[in-house]
């Protein structure tokens, strides 16, 4: 079909609008990146836009030379890896049995689980529970209490529903039990959903700070985002800084920018590769009961 001239113009208007969107998404990142690589002098004089002025790596040297940052990077990476594995394990063993239509009590289990999506006890009851469990201010509090997300469990369950039942039935005829079927048939076919949920859980842990803010006091257990929160907010208002060693405002500005990049780059390196998976996953989440 030959397109009219008018609709060609329309195509380019739309392409241009999308270009604006790209700019709005990328420019803030570029500005912060440029700041992190600029000299303090250029920053004070407001000369940094989207390209570094007085290019140097000093801010990154300070950040990577400071054990506070490197420790929290390693610690958060550790929490993220352990947390993601635990979450994937819990999500799988929760979603898989619920796909058996013959399972007695399936409705009951579903109701018990889904109810928690609509009504939750709230922050303070959670705090008191963790206090009674003696989990406050321990590393466990950053992994266990939110390790299973109902939303993610539904995504996995929807994906499992998409696996043909005939596969399971023929394996059952060969005498395979549910666990064997899960390990040898379902999991190998579930790479897309596992990759998606791994991304969701990992990003959640990497980016989370409020649980640590509420439940953790010991500094060495702080995940990177809480450390960042404290740094950004303590260095914000007054430019003569409280962090040891940096006295000029420009330096603290570039260090702030460098810490932001430092905590962002790991995610930016990962998510584009998983795009085709997480689009499927995010769509599955919309499928209802």
């Amino acid at each position: 079909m030959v397109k009219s001239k008018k609709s060609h113009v329309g195509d380019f208007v739309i392409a241009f609008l999308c270009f604006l969107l790209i700019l709005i998404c990328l420019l803030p990142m570029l500005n912060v990146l440029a700041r992190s690589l600029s000299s303090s002098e250029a920053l004070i004089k407001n000369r940094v836009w989207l390209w570094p002025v007085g290019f140097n790596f000093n801010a990154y040297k300070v950040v990577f030379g400071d054990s506070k940052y490197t420790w929290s990077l390693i610690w958060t990476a550790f929490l993220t890896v352990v947390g993601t594995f635990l979450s994937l394990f819990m999500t799988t063993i929760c979603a898989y049995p619920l796909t058996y239509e013959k399972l007695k009590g399936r409705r009951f289990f579903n109701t018990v689980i889904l109810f928690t999506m609509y009504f939750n006890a709230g922050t303070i009851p959670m705090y008191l529970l963790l206090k009674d469990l003696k989990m406050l201010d321990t590393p466990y509090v950053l992994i266990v209490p939110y390790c299973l997300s109902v939303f993610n469990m539904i995504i996995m369950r929807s994906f499992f529903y998409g696996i043909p039942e005939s596969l399971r039935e023929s394996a059952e005829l060969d005498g395979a039990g549910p666990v064997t079927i899960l390990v040898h048939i379902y999991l190998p076919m579930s790479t897309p959903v596992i990759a998606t949920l791994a991304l969701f859980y990992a990003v959640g842990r990497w980016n989370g700070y409020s649980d640590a803010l509420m439940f953790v006091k010991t500094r060495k257990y702080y995940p990177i985002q809480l450390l960042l929160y404290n740094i950004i907010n303590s260095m914000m208002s007054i430019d003569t800084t409280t962090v040891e060693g940096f006295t000029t405002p420009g330096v603290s500005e570039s260090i702030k920018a460098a810490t932001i990049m430092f905590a962002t780059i790991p995610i930016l390196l990962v998510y584009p590769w998983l795009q085709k998976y997480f689009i499927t996953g995010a769509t599955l989440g919309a499928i209802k009961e």
Partner: protein
Amino acid sequence: MQKSQGKRQRAINYIKRYWTLYLLLLLPMAYFIIFKYIPMHYILIAFKKYSIVKSVWEMPWAGNHGFEYFIKAFQNKDFINAVRNTLMLNALDLIFGFPAPIILALLLNELPFPRYKKFTQTVAYMPHFLSWVIIAGMAKQLFAPTSGLVNNLLNRLGFESIPFMNDPTWWVVTYIFIGIWQSVGWNTIIYLAAITGINPELYEAAEMDGAGRFRKMWHITLPGIRPTIITLLILSLGRILGSDFDRPFALSNHMVENVSDVISIFVYRNGIQGLQFSLSTAVGLFQSVVCVIFLFAANALAKKFGERGVW
């Protein structure tokens, strides 16, 4: 007799075959009971005088038939303020933030260059993967009154600097804008998926009839994704008094607390920092109950208008 034996045999076979499924469910169910249901009994604290040495059951009931702390909350200016802010920010999010991904999905759907489309999507998803701490950090640098990129640009164009993050009114504008920035790309995923489900023959038939781009959008695409829109609208309405913590807390600063303090921040300040457990549990319970009521109401309303509800 024989019948019941057959039944028992079937039950034994069933258990033999499927007991491992229950074993698998053991851990997840324990998780839900411990971390979702047991906390619910602490809700009683909202109706009791909290005491650190007593168990929940032993604490004495609060005054006014147990509703002392609810009354106190509604007499508390900060709480009224938090409710107002929560409603205001959520309503603005709904008005401006809800249509944004629908519009973007329509645009992306019309974009004829597949590789460019994919690139746009990849970039637009990016903000969703940034933490609110990082977004707030970037915003504070970009919108800083004297050194920020945005105000520098405004100054060059001959405008005065705008206190985006430090003036209460401007802060609300910035908060809503950043919210859209963070979520618009990600939220298109679900609409784009719904659009792919629309029968292409409808478009072909409309083209035969000479329908242009906008008429096809209006008469085919939008009605095609209507169930998705309604479902998401119900869920958003259900959250109208719900409050996220990470976003307002990260973006807030002491100059704008008057508009940025939402219920979740009130609970954090008074409960975890202020140790007023009864008061803040009462506030949390009030919020949860209102959320459930709103969700049911929105769902019932949608059904009344002949739409498919959430359940």
